[in-house]
């Protein structure tokens, strides 16, 4: 397919399917090690929390059926796997007759939008700064400024989010405190709505960007240092090519490739970080849905959200793996890497 070696393709596909399978199995297995009936625990919690107890029998039935506690384990497991393939996660307990999938479908676009936006911005800024850190023609002040920006790299986005929220929403009142769009605007493809979404999304995105770009910068710096010493770079310079041309077409083009695979290692952390940012900003995404579900002990939603986020993570790694041979011709002409 598109010149991608089939061994490589099969290898990646197996890894992807196995990831989803193992994650799904873990989510299924964990409640079952609990010594008591998970359905009863959840119902008991709901009752003690003074939550929705009317129709308790229905809920108990639903939960028991969900866990299929009366069937032998392989039947339960089979049913569970089938339900997960068909995105049927049962019905939410907190907002009772709504299927979990409906709730997820409402939240997913917000999370995906914020995630794609912040990852793209981070990747571009991070790699550009990493390249400039090594390039010999970068102006001196930049060589001091960039490394000092690295200090934010290790801080999880939730901490930067709190700080930005306090400065820009509470103190300066430049940005709204919570939510993903204003209460007064009607969702739709109108200019007002888009403006409101951008206004609300700016701080969550910024709090992710300022703490994650450093990961790419540091990686790029290491790669640029090794590329810098290569013969083809020396030759390109000796030929008298423009320094900028050498930087982009010779150095960055070669150094950036391993960065794309580094994405696979980082995406899990990025997603978790974003979930927490959504929670503190009450952004209408999966993070808020998950947090509300934890508060309500709405186990079907917790299970569904966790599964969908893991699926998303595995899928983005898979897509990057598929794109990689298209960007790096060397993969296409050699055997699949181990």
């Amino acid at each position: 397919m598109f010149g991608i070696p089939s061994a490589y393709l099969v290898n990646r596909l197996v890894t992807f399917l196995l990831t989803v399978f193992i994650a799904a199995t873990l989510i299924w297995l964990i409640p079952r090690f609990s010594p008591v009936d998970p359905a009863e625990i959840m119902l008991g919690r709901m009752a003690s929390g003074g939550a929705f107890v009317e129709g308790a029998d229905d809920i108990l039935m639903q939960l028991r059926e969900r866990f299929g506690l009366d069937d032998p384990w392989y039947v339960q497991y089979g049913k569970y796997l089938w339900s997960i393939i068909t995105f049927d996660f049962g019905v939410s307990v907190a907002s009772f007759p709504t299927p979990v999938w409906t709730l997820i479908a409402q939240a997913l676009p917000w999370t995906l939008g914020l995630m794609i936006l912040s990852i793209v911005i981070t990747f571009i800024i991070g790699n550009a700064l990493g390249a400039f850190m090594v390039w010999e023609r970068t102006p001196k002040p930049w060589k001091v400024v960039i490394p000092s920006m690295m200090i934010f790299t290790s801080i999880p986005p939730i901490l930067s989010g709190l700080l930005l929220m306090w400065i820009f929403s509470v103190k300066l009142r430049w940005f709204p405190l919570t939510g993903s769009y204003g209460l007064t605007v009607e969702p739709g493809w109108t200019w007002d709505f888009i403006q409101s979404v951008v206004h609300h999304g700016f701080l969550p995105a910024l709090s992710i960007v300022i703490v994650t770009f450093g990961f790419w910068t540091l990686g790029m710096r290491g790669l640029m240092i090794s590329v810098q010493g290569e013969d083809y770079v020396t030759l390109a310079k000796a030929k008298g090519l423009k320094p900028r041309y050498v930087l982009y077409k010779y150095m960055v083009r070669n150094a950036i490739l391993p960065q794309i695979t580094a994405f696979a290692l980082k995406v899990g952390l990025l997603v978790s970080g974003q979930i927490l940012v959504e929670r503190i900003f009450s952004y209408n995404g999966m993070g808020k849905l998950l947090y509300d579900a934890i508060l309500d002990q709405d186990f079907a939603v917790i299970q569904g959200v966790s599964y969908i986020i893991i699926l998303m993570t595995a899928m983005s790694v898979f897509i990057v793996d598929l794109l990689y041979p298209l960007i790096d011709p060397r993969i296409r002409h050699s055997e699949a890497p181990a």
Partner: protein
Amino acid sequence: MTEVTAQTQAPEGEAKGRFNRFDNPWLNPKLIWGVGILLGIILLGVLGRMLWNTELVFTGSTPLRLPPLGFENLRGQPGVADYPLGTDGAGRDLLALLIIGAPNTLMIGAVASLIGMTTGIVLGFSAGFIGGRVDDTIRILADVMITIPPLLILVVFQSVYGDVTLLLMAFLIAGFMWQSPTRLIRAQVLSMRESGYVKMAQLSGASTAHIMFREMMPNLIPYLFGSFIANATTAIVTAVGLEVLGLGPQRIPTLGRVIYDAINSGALIQNLWWWWGLPTALLALMFIALLLINLGLDEISNPRLRKI
């Protein structure tokens, strides 16, 4: 100041001999600063327990919402010397919370990372040495597990089981901390296995254990340190994440739990900045220290990075 620290921390054996003291790669300023900050946080926990009344972490043991010393809260109350860092909305002293919470958070990171590393060393060496089916299984398993975000599996776990102890939380996180050391060590073992000195040892009839621990392990030490620190960071991020979602230990103060309480009580809007700000700042300092250590170790194991 750096120089004084440098001299006291210099490993004796390395500083002697034909090397100039300042050429010693372990005297890396980043590493020293990182270790220094981390030791400071640990010291806060140790000295604090001896010098400060840690009973003040209990709900209702102090007046509510007092600001730190030298500030005034919205009700016009000034900070008092009895509670120098202020108090939270449930009547707990923030200094006491930080003294108890910070070492707990570091402990989770260290324990989870240590278990993960030990598992990683065993699996990585097995994969690299035995090869074949074992290698395939371990490699695929590590590739698969590295994609799964630990936070989400642990959210499922803790929402079913409710309260957990600190140690159980560390063990649970450790279940997701073995993948990257396994991959790293496997790759290193594979490349070292072909190197001259290992071949030499094999030819001279050295046992597998000897080759593993006496020939290969010393070369891995900078990588292992780096991997340990990176994993500890990830473990702490995961633990704080769970705590901020309201999961994690419910009765023991942790920094994440303090932030959770603060957000839930609307501390941001009520301008109770010390309540969420101090634990946030301490966590940020912790992460910066871990990053500095990691950067320092990078420069030690890869001399090319040192030039810039």
